[in-house]
């Protein structure tokens, strides 16, 4: 009997040690939403990109200051006409199913992006006409025209190389058990509950990975997410509400990390899409200029976001080298009134549609009262987000408060929004001069030439205002003090290289 008790106690002590050791290496991460399908070819959500960063390595990645660095690729070379790109691949990289990551796998993945029905990557790689295996570690990508953002595109989901063996099982099977060449391999997913990944022992860069297991838990309510962090049920949470920042900072067990985003919050104006474009704000740029001048952006972020977000009137995030370093424009009511008088509209009515979240409704109310001082009669219309998107793209709205999460290359933040016929150009704004500059931005390889083109776009769209930019969010993470080595990236994606716990 005594022996039984002793062996029982030993087993208990051992299991507790194992549990402690395991606990020290496990990270529980609270996400704002449940990701969609876990397949980089068809994934459409921002939150999915967070999970992929641990699951699927990319050909390239970004640094916190937005420099592109090689990952699965070791280098690249453009042809003299900029119409083909040679990629050199890293040797000795294995997928999580033990198969080899090589040029054939890269070709398979990129072809899959271009041909899989429902691929969301196809439009990102629109200029790609063919992928050729040169040798086991070299791939050649042919383009119909020079496309400068390609490397940046390959630093996101399009550059995530999947195991051809796993992908051959079919898109649905792959999404339910994704296999890539990232630091953590897929263990299980219970929709709306958790996604569990564990360390991939044969990861090519395993020296950088200190964690054994990551569990992603989607918890949409920011207050509940924070409560879980405070109670110790989570170790790290993303997208903390700025209004909770003081509470997090006053908690001695927690720390925060933050960085300015690549995207923006703006108001999309219907300038050319159906009868709603005939509104005062849609039909006259002076009215739009007056509206923009009536906004005190600093006060707006102070009131609604505790001053945590960055007031700005540009479409590039503050971390981008294409961002023009200047302060947000000052409010000028006198000038706004003068512009309205010149437009013959001293008291224009603006129907401003706002997604029905509490904070965006506050943004709408602040804008309403600020614009009223210049003579605007702003009528707020709250709308559920998906319905708002549908209405906006059909041209049923005059002005819609809409955000963009941002991409590394400036092309991803402007081309579709203001090019004539762009997929996200809800207001159907069209200016040939802007289109020409957008093309230069896409095709030029020289930074200075691209910068000049994008500066020109900022200048023209800043005058014609198809989108009135308001501010940039700051990504805000909160974590237990035991989490060390976390580095914030401006794309808001969590990377766990060198992150430790305990």
């Amino acid at each position, binding site marked *: 009997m005594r022996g039984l008790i002793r062996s029982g106690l030993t087993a208990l002590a051992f299991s507790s040690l194992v549990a402690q050791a395991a606990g020290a290496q496990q990270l529980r991460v609270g996400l704002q939403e449940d990701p969609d399908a876990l397949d980089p070819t*068809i994934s459409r959500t921002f939150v999915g990109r967070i999970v992929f960063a641990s699951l699927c390595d990319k050909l390239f990645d970004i640094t916190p200051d937005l420099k592109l660095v090689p990952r699965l690729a070791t280098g690249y070379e453009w042809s003299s006409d900029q119409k083909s790109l040679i990629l050199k691949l890293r040797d000795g990289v294995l997928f999580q199913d033990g198969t080899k990551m090589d040029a054939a796998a890269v070709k398979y993945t990129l072809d899959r992006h271009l041909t899989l029905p429902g691929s969301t990557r196809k439009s990102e790689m629109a200029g790609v006409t063919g992928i050729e295996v040169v040798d086991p570690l070299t791939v050649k990508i042919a383009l119909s025209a020079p496309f400068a953002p390609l490397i940046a595109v390959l630093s996101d989901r399009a550059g995530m190389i999947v195991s051809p063996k796993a992908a051959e099982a079919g898109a649905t099977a792959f999404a*339910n058990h994704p296999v890539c060449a990232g630091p953590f391999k897929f263990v299980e997913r219970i*929709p*709306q509950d958790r996604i569990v990944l564990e360390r991939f022992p044969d990861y090519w860069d395993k020296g950088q990975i200190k964690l054994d297991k990551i569990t992603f838990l989607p918890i949409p309510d920011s207050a509940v997410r924070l*409560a*879980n962090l405070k109670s110790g049920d989570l170790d790290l949470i993303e997208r903390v509400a700025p209004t909770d920042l003081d509470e997090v900072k006053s908690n001695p067990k927690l720390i925060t990390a933050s960085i300015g985003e690549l995207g923006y919050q703006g108001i999309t104006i219907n300038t050319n899409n159906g009868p709603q474009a005939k509104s005062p704000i849609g039909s006259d740029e002076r009215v739009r200029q007056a509206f923009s001048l009536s906004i005190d952006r600093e006060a707006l972020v102070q009131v609604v976001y505790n001053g945590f977000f960055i007031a700005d009137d540009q479409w590039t995030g503050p971390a981008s080298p294409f961002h023009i370093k200047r302060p947000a424009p000052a409010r000028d009511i006198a000038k706004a009134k003068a512009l309205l008088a010149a437009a013959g509209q001293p008291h224009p009515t603006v129907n401003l549609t706002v997604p029905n979240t509490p904070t965006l409704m506050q943004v709408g109310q602040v804008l309403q009262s600020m614009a009223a001082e210049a003579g605007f009669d702003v009528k707020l219309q709250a709308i559920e987000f998906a319905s708002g*998107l549908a209405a906006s793209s059909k041209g049923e709205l005059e002005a819609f408060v809409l955000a963009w999460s941002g991409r590394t290359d400036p092309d991803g933040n402007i081309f579709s929004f203001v090019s004539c016929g762009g997929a996200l150009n809800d207001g159907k704004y069209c200016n040939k001069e802007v289109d020409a500059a957008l093309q230069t931005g896409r095709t030029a390889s020289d930074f200075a030439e691209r910068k000049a083109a994008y500066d020109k776009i900022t200048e023209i769209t800043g005058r014609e205002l198809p989108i009135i930019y308001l501010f940039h969010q700051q990504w805000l993470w909160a974590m237990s003090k035991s989490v060390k080595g976390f580095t914030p990236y401006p794309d808001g994606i969590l990377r766990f290289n060198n992150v430790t716990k305990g």
Partner: protein
Amino acid sequence: MRRFILHRLGVLVPTLIFVSMMIFALQQLLPGDPALALAGEERDPQVIQFLRARYHLDQPLPVRYAYWIGGVLHGDLGESIRIQRPVAELVLEKLPVTGELTVMAMIIALTIGIPAGIVAAVKRGTAWDVAANAVALWGLSTPNFWLGILMILLFSVHLGWLPASGYVSPFESLWGNLSTLIMPAFVLGNAIAAVIMRHTRSAMLQVMRSDYVRTARAKGLSERVVILKHGLRNALGPVITLGALEFGQLLSGAVLTEQVFTIPGFGKLVVDAVFNRDYAVVQGVVLCTASFYILLNLAADLLYAAINPRLRA
């Protein structure tokens, strides 16, 4: 009794067909284009077109209904567009979670509601009665989400006794399962307990005034036997019917409770699906819930007939 059951089952089929049509039609009233909502931030026109064709969103309403109901009759509830898994699989995965939550909530509601109702009726007009009514009023008027957040703050954040959210399967850890479900089950059962208490009280008051109770007392039976055997047994009929109806309420209450406590059950599945316009999931979940509710009513009728022989004829 057999005829009674057959008759009720006969009504079941047209009811379910009507319900399936209503689910399908009502969902079409949701504003917004599902393909657009599902296409993600990029809103790629090719992806939107693909989604429309793949999920028959470009077809007229009756054709889409025919596709769906045809699949349902073959046991195929469709596929979640967002996460690419069969709806039937998701339903089977989530059903036990919500089932366990609602059963636990109902046990809590009955454990609180029936004894409180008996005490309030037996001690009518005393401080016990007033206290029970006050607690019931509090239970009825407390919003689920508010009570949920307060409980999280108290038991998880301040005291650190219970996990703030999530779900652990009983097969994984029994304690983990109880610790994750006890707060949401209490929050969910709280309002139902109040309703059950009030109904038990009024039913008991009525029964305790009846002749057969007076006769039982006159026979010299102890008050305990009079209350529990003669009083409660007769008062339970309407309470059982109410319990079954309230079970439906619990299912709808679970929607909110599961959101607050992040429990991966039916409620969370359907809310996320509504926001993402994942039509197949909404339809599948609502159809299953409606069928379950109808079957519950049937079970209540049968149970009612079992304890009241006069209804069997």
